């Protein structure tokens, strides 16, 4: 009996495995109902994620305050309530200020290049189980956002829109292992390909054997045909390491992105590059050294020198 039961469950297991392999094959062949299942899920999840962002972020800041609940004095309670209200106000103000600064920065960048943009808030991001670096935005096709549009933050490039629903969109971040972008070195015409690695730094492969790169070089997006998926001229990152291996056909290196992808709150999606290629106009300016004041002191001659013995 046990053997029959065992065989039956094994048979079921084999059947389910074959079914899952069948589903994988269908998806790889591009059967549309399967891909629309995911976008359907996104449509359902987006309002929940938006709500969770609104509710969860302020609440999480008050976990430490729970310990004060046992106090009974009315005055203490009232003061604590006021205190918490003020704290929440401060946190709210800080959050708003951070988002405002972020928004201002990204609008400055977009304004310089005359990009037509739509700003959106980050409401969620991809989990560990997906092994993909993604974020979810609270704006979608209703705001004009479409697949394969460039996403920027105050520092520069963030990623590219992977899919959209009416009110949300998923962005593939530039550190995702499947991310590729054509770049050029600012001030030169040398071109290369930047590859996401899942880490903070990205891999760079130059295209030409004669290309020369050095540490500190700024990379800008080359742009794609019809500005999709990438508009030209967006700052991508700075070369942090150049590999000098013998026998290499082209130069390779590592690049640090300009944007901290772990702390994104507001980003902008580029709908169109109105003025075409902005060239090197968006290259971040190096901070100017503060002028140092040098004071020369000339000792004035004294009429007599007093010795210790005097």
């Amino acid at each position, binding site marked *: 009996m046990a053997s029959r039961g065992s065989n039956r469950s094994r048979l079921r297991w084999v059947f389910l495995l074959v079914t899952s392999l069948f589903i994988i094959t*269908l998806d790889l062949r591009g059967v549309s109902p399967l891909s629309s299942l995911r976008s359907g899920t996104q449509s359902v999840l987006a309002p929940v994620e938006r709500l*969770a962002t609104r509710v969860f972020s302020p609440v999480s800041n008050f976990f430490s305050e729970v310990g004060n609940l046992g106090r009974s004095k009315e005055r203490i309670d009232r003061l604590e309530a006021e205190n918490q209200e003020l704290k929440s106000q401060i946190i709210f103000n800080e959050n708003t200020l951070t988002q405002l600064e972020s928004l201002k920065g990204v609008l400055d960048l977009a304004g310089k290049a005359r990009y037509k943009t739509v700003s959106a808030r980050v409401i969620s991001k*991809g989990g*560990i*189980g997906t092994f993909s670096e993604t974020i979810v935005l609270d704006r979608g096709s209703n705001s004009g956002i479409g697949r394969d549009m460039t996403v920027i933050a105050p520092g520069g490039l963030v990623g590219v829109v992977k899919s959209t629903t009416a009110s949300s969109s998923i962005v593939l971040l530039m550190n995702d292992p499947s991310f590729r972008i054509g770049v050029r070195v600012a001030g030169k015409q040398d071109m290369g390909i930047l590859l996401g690695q899942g*880490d903070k730094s990205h891999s760079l492969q130059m295209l030409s054997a004669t290309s020369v790169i050095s540490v500190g070089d700024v990379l800008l997006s080359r742009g794609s045909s019809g500005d999709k998926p990438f508009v030209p001229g967006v700052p991508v990152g700075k070369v942090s390491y150049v590999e000098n291996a013998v026998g290499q056909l082209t130069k390779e290196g590592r690049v640090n992105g300009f944007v901290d992808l772990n702390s994104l709150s507001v980003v902008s999606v580029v709908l169109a590059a109105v003025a075409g290629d902005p060239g090197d106009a968006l290259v971040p300016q190096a901070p100017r050294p503060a002028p140092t004041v040098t004071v020369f002191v000339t000792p004035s001659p004294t009429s007599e020198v007093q010795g210790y013995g005097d």
Partner: protein
Amino acid sequence: MEISRLPRVLLIFLTLFLIQEALINQIDFLVAGFSLYLAFFMAWVIQDQRDSAVTTGFIAGLILDLSPTLEAPFGLWTFVLASMSFLLASNVRAALDAQLTPLVMLSATVLASTFALTLFLLVGAILGQEVGSASYVIRSIFGNALWSVLLSPLYVPVAVRLHKATLTARQQ
């Protein structure tokens, strides 16, 4: 698995999926991230009989495949979780004592989550998915294992209670 149990299992894993996508994914964990869904699934399935474990694995995998941020082909998590559930319920479970101690359960859950992530990456790589640098993969898997250990006092008792609640009196 009995048909009457199916809706309850489905509801539990759908709720868990929602929590994972809407809340857990928003938290910036110190090292990589944490998949509550995966850890909870392992803690759940290790208590199951082989028959129902395989079905649960298939259902849980299908739900996880719905994740809109997933780059892998649809069905990959279904394949991985169906395989893992059979492995856990038949081989690992049989090798353990009839009464699962918390320590044994914790170790099995963490190891199984780690193995599932590795299997997912391996099969994904075979299917042509980009995997990322070795440091990224190691950090992700290690981070998940770390958080699975640290947060186990929270999710393991819930998994045990909910699992018991879905069983009929005869099965209990």
